[in-house]
């Protein structure tokens, strides 16, 4: 479990430290203050040997294309490619930190890896290209583990013309093995998990016969839910729910709130000993159920030993979380607010007493 982390030169952050962390962490703050960027930084750190995450965090933001001439500028503060992005984290693993440094580099030796190598992952479609070119730059993921051992993985933007008018962009990448790492699952606000991702995660839960745990959480939003099932219609699988109607109903049709909560619950259940990152967790949830949803999420994260980081804009969501944890047996929850101070962004952390006092006195915490 993460106890603290420090982010340097990433997106809008020059040097941001957040501590202490709890099992559940809500991140609040004004618009454009970097709430989502905190989740992204943690996700990169958790996947410290997966350079493709650098592309995917941009994809979640709607930046679908890689700029072949100046790739990944968006990762660095002030779009300055000379900076080295760094995420250093302390956790329960050891007294020593785990550090990810990300930077751009012109490859000294151009290595075209052999096809089929297990250490390579290519996100571009495998077709015989009419032509292809690499970016001048590689993105380097340099990871230092708690023993001081350094691992370098890299990603190399690749542009392929696969038909006269079709150009595909991808990332040729090399992943250095850094040891077994627990899962890190990111649920973006804009980019809802695809049906396939939820189905894969649901199937994994079905295999270990833990569906009732998921259903128990969903009942907090809709008590009618009795059972879930993957139903294939016209070749398309989708998670359906038995809500006491004559037929099963696709979960997205029941409502946004239950659909969102299903994704969160499936993510937690599939991230044992890892982290789940949820952008705008309150999306779609009716205010009247949020306290019970928080209680259910708290129990679920403890059951699977998952640490959860979520962003929110909502006063109701924060009040509900505080109330839920006060009424719970354990207050393993912190609120962290990002705030601009003297041209840098810093974090302010509320633990049980300060958050309770602020909410009682009407002092803004977001």
């Amino acid at each position: 479990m993460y106890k603290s982390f420090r982010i340097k030169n990433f997106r809008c952050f020059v040097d941001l430290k957040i501590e202490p962390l709890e099992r559940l962490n809500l991140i609040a703050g004004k618009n454009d203050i970097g709430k989502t960027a905190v989740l992204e930084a943690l996700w990169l750190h958790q996947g410290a040997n997966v350079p493709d995450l650098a592309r995917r965090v941009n994809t979640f933001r709607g930046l679908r294309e890689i700029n072949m001439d100046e790739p990944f500028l968006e990762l660095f503060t002030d779009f300055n490619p000379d900076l080295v992005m760094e995420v250093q984290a302390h956790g329960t693993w050891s007294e020593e930190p785990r550090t990810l440094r990300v930077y751009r580099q012109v490859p000294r030796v151009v290595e075209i890896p052999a096809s089929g190598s297990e250490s390579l992952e290519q996100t571009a479609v495998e077709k015989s290209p009419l032509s292809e070119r690499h970016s001048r730059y590689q993105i380097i993921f340099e990871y230092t583990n708690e023993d001081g051992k350094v691992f370098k993985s890299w990603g190399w933007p690749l542009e392929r013309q696969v038909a006269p008018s079709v150009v595909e962009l991808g990332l040729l990448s090399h992943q250095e093995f850094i040891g077994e790492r627990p899962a890190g699952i990111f649920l973006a606000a804009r980019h809802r998990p695809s049906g396939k991702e939820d189905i894969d995660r649901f199937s994994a839960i079905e295999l270990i016969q833990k569906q009732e745990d998921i259903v128990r959480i969903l009942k907090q939003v809709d008590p009618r839910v009795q059972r879930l099932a993957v139903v294939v219609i016209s070749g398309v699988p989708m998670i359906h729910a038995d809500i006491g109607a004559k037929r099963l109903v696709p979960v997205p049709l029941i409502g946004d709130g239950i659909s969102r909560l299903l994704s969160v619950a499936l993510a937690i259940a599939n991230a044992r000993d890892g982290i789940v990152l949820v952008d705008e967790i309150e999306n779609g949830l009716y205010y009247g159920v949020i306290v019970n949803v928080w209680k259910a999420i708290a129990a679920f994260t403890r059951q699977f030993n998952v640490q959860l980081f979520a962003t929110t804009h909502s006063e109701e969501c924060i009040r509900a979380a505080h109330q839920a944890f006060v009424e719970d047996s354990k207050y393993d929850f912190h609120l962290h607010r990002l705030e601009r101070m003297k041209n840098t962004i810093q974090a302010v952390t509320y633990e049980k007493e300060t958050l309770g006092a602020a909410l009682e006195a009407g002092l803004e915490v977001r």
Partner: protein
Amino acid sequence: MSTESNEVPLTPITATKVIAVEGKDELNLLSALKDQLGIDNIEIRSLGGKYSFSTKLKSLVITPGFISVRSLGVIRDANSSASATFQSICAALRNVGLPVPTKPLSPTKVDEEKPQVVVLIVPHGASKGMLEDICLQSVGEDPAMSCVEAYFECIKRNLGKLPSNLSKARVHAFLSSRDQPDLRLGEAAQAGYWPWTHQAFTQVKQFLSLL
């Protein structure tokens, strides 16, 4: 969630001068007095409730907007010991890294990095007491006060004891003599029932002027 009707909406700090008070009565009274004096650049925040003053002060200083505060006032009842209350406030200020005054009504030095701090323990100069005592002092000459005294003499005679908080009881008895008989101390201030020109309020006015 179960939305409690007494939830106070969350608001950031917007003024550069802030006064931290203990409850709604203090908030309403000081608001009425500063309006009377034509002061409009002071924000008064009520930090009443179940948490310790130290915790509430910590919450206040991390509230959005506090970074722009240049002057912080703290007003508290002396209760049973003015010196103990002052020391308790000083400890809380020290705990959150704010400047600590040497005595009540003595502002700390101006510092570019931190707000100036002024503390008032009411009644100023007394070893014990509360805001109610100032208000009662201000209406000491009011004809209704002789009735209030007679009332409590009667209560003592017939019941054999007086209310444990006699100052609060006397304020209630006095206010029940007004046109609007059901107001609380702070609401009575808003209604103009306390004579601001009385010397009883001199130190409170001084406190406001020092911010």
